């Protein structure tokens, strides 16, 4: 009995390890802003959301499985929220019974009895809700869960639960049958339903003449203990069954609460993004050998949540090319673009919607980020060394099918050196089957890559208008030999610079990159 709302064959397992570079992903992509936007203060939802975003799905079928639940959730937001509240309440009540370790069959049975008594009412409520909505929902996950709840926990079944639970209170004592085992000790103890000849209790209380009755001397601790042991042995197998049953009831409620939490979080995020008027779409995962990153109005949802307003979206059409090079003006939105790619990729592979008008991308086996940091540090050689070490650590894990996001990697040395280093590394990775999105102001690097293999690279650059102002919009086109630092200079010093000589002349005649809308 498992909810299976996140995966058709697996339960959510928060103990399942997240990727070893989870810390880098959280930091470099600003993932926690997204998580906070989903959780709205709920710590369980935050935990589930973070875990789900970090442990990417790679099977498009499972991505579709979650997307279907999410579509149901968007169609019936209150249904999902009510189920979530119900599971939460039930869990709280039953966990209250459950705390502490129990070590013997008698107490395992006692606890199981209490848990089940509470669970009966919760199961009844869940069933009623399921029965009401089973024909409304479309997703395989919710349909299956609702059908099971409706069919497994009908009134006769719940009545049978109740009857068994009452029997487990053993008000008339414990009856067990036995055989003679090794050394004539009782063996094959089988717990029987109820006393066969009325309550013996009454016959035992007055001094009994019957030779078949053994009264325990109250003063004899040894006999009392022996009697307790015998009772525990009689209850042993039943305790094993009921211990598993109560564990499983609790597990079901826990999973239900956690897995629903993911969708409730998605609903919250949806509302907060939509309120800005920015688009949200269900992405299209691709598993073709042909690498794809095609998006329209792709934006950084974290930035949107932080600013509370609509942020600039970008289009990218890297269809069939494994490398996206983003060059151009400082503060032109390159880093934001890189984060929007990374977050969209993680959201795609978490099975939720993405912050874009449309989004189609190859499913990545793993996602890595390499970001230059500590921009003020003066120990340049030490920084390059550290950067290379980090890259080496990533490189040790990289495999074909992975996606690597680089932000100003190897900027800590001079442009020539940095470009040469990066050029070799990027080429090696791309040729090994790794997809790379690389954001840089290293013109040498971009130019070299453009000369090498223009047909396998999608070039984007930060837009600068004729007047030098930035739109934060990326344009398709080959790299330009300046990073527009002079724009900044001009804006600050207000003097007129040189005439524009760097307007894009070549266009995208090679056809590898373009501004085409990428509705999928």
């Amino acid at each position, binding site marked *: 009995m498992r909810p299976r709302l996140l995966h058709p064959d697996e339960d959510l397992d928060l103990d399942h390890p997240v990727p070893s570079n989870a810390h880098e992903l959280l930091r470099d992509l600003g993932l926690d802003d997204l998580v906070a936007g989903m959780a709205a203060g709920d710590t369980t939802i935050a935990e589930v959301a973070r875990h789900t975003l970090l442990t990417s799905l790679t099977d498009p079928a499972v991505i579709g499985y979650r997307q279907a639940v999410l579509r149901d959730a968007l169609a019936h937001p209150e249904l999902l929220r009510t189920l979530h509240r119900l599971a939460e309440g039930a869990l709280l009540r039953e966990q209250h019974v459950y705390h502490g370790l129990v070590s013997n069959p008698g107490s395992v049975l006692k606890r199981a009895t209490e848990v089940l008594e509470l669970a009966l009412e919760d199961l009844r409520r869940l069933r009623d809700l399921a029965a009401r909505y089973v024909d409304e929902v479309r997703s395989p996950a919710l349909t299956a869960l609702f059908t099971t709840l409706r069919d497994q926990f009908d009134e006769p079944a719940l009545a049978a639960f109740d009857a068994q639970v009452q029997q487990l209170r053993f008000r008339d004592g414990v009856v067990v049958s036995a055989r003679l085992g090794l050394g004539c000790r009782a063996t094959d103890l089988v717990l029987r339903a109820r006393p066969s000849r009325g309550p013996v209790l009454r016959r035992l209380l007055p001094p009994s003449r019957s030779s078949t009755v053994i*009264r325990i001397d109250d003063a004899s601790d040894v006999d009392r203990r022996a009697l307790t042991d015998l009772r525990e042995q009689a209850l042993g197998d039943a305790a094993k069954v009921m211990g598993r049953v109560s564990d499983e009831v609790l597990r079901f409620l826990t999973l239900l609460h956690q897995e629903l939490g993911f969708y409730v979080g998605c609903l919250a995020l949806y509302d907060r993004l939509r309120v800005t008027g920015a688009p949200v779409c269900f992405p299209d995962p691709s598993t073709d050998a042909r690498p794809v990153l095609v998006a329209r109005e792709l934006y950084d949802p974290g930035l949107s949540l932080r600013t509370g307003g609509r942020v600039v979206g970008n289009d990218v059409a890297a269809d069939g090319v494994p490398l996206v090079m983003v060059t151009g003006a400082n503060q032109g939105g390159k880093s934001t673009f890189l984060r929007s790619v990374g977050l969209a990729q993680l959201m795609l592979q978490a099975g939720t919607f993405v912050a874009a008008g449309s989004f189609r991308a190859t499913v990545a086996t793993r996602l890595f980020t390499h970001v230059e940091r500590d921009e003020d540090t003066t120990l340049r050689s030490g920084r390059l060394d550290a950067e290379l070490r980090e890259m080496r650590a990533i490189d040790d894990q990289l495999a074909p099918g992975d996606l690597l996001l680089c932000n100003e990697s190897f900027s800590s040395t001079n442009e020539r050196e940095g470009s040469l280093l990066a050029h070799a590394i990027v080429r090696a990775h791309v040729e090994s089957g790794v997809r790379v999105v690389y954001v840089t102001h290293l013109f040498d690097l971009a130019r070299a890559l453009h000369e090498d293999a223009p047909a396998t690279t999608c070039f984007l650059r930060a837009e600068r208008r004729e007047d030098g102002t930035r739109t934060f919009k990326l344009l398709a086109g080959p790299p330009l030999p300046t990073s527009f630092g002079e724009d900044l200079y001009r804006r600050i010093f207000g003097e007129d610079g040189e005439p524009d000589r760097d307007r894009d002349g070549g266009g995208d005649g090679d056809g590898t990159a373009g501004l085409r809308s990428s509705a999928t």
Partner: protein
Amino acid sequence: MSSDPAPAPPAISVLFRTAADEPPPPDGLDRAALEDLNLDQLVGVLARRRPSYDLTPTVTRRLTDPDAVAYRQEVFRDLDRDDVRDAVDRFCAAMLRLRRFRSLAVSRQAPAERRSWHLHAGRVYVEAVTRLVGDLAALEVRSRGLTRLHGHLEQLLASSPFRTLAADTERVHAALGTVRYRLHLVPQGVEVLHDDGDETDLTAALATTFAAFLPDELPVPNPEPRRAAAMTHLEAQILDRVAELEPETFAALEGYVDDHPDPVDPAVLAFDRDVQFYLAYLEHVATLRRAGLPFCEPIVTRAAGSPVLRETFDLLLADKLLTEGARPVGNSLELADPERLVVVTGANQGGKTTFARTLGQVYHLASIGCPVPGREVRLTLPDRVLTHFAREERLADRHGRLQDDLLRMRVILQTASADSLVILNELFRSTTIVDAQVLGRRILDRLAGVGALTVYVTFIDELAARGPDTVSLVATVDPSDPALRTFRLERRPADGRAHAAALAERHGLTYEAIRARHRT
């Protein structure tokens, strides 16, 4: 099989052809030799493997008749087969249970319980013997020892007392097996009842009712209920009531004990005891064989001949070395007529003492019928193994030591014959080189006169050059690094200088080195 009317059963032993083969207990010289050769450690090692059997007499007493040795070698050959050993191991495990049950049949309080242990012991006995007879027939054992045992057991199995025992055992056991009763446990005590035939298994009913919450995967095991190691007073009282409910069955049990007070055949007990020697030794050898160390069945003769020992090693040192991740070095010795004296010289700590000890061990192990360390061993069974090993604690008083050495040598020389093995290790170490040389030569002359096979470990190189009756073995060093000891002994004239030169080279004390230093 003949069916003579009840002759006294022949004494069947897997250790001796007849009682006459049994050697006398070791005397003082034997005990000293066992200690010098570290064979007292082997006794300890085997005793640890079989703590409840006393293997000391078998391990310490050498046989002197080659056919008596062959008798054991045959048994070793049979038991070296995995299938035969498995069958015997199974039998021994049953005998272990048998002995435990027999002691419970005496020590326990409740009469019914005592009788039931007696019955269990009888059952184990009947099963073990029946199974062993079947196994021995199917396995086609070859050794005289196991063949004779097989014959004896076949006779036993066919005898009418055994058949009666087997039938009675089964009948009473089956009757006890049908006893079913019911316990009604309440806080004040227990009622013991006839089984009323109510087949409602509450545990099974619970499993059915709550099937939806019983996951398929293996559950975390609940703690097993506590159970006293032996029957409690309360359980004994319950058993009394059960006996009252089933008077006939328990009367039959009592009759069984009266009819078969001591059912176990002495030859069966003797086999279980005697075969432990073989099993323990083979177990010990198995660990060394797994590490790739060779063992072989020695060819033993009575007629004086020249020994051949190839790739032998110290059995007990090998064990220690393997646990340290090292391996023993195998050494060989091959003598031809008239060679009788082996003088061992060479590098300190170069394996001289180990070689001497190895030789003594191989002779002793061959004499008790065991497979020995080595690829090939051919030797004459010695009438005595006489040893004298220098020991640090004996060096306290130099004069006393020399006197002790000489007194001991006198006893050894009085005892030794042409059939003896004499191993002398660092004799006269306490005296001057001149004394050691003179006295050593005298002793060797005397031993040569007696004709005993002698190993003489010494630091006096001159003793190695004697004549055609003497072989010189030298503990060698690695030619590429003369400071490295190889632990390998080579047959060549003792010079003692290669090692000295190597040490001089290393320390810069050669003639040339000293001259060269003083020239400048």
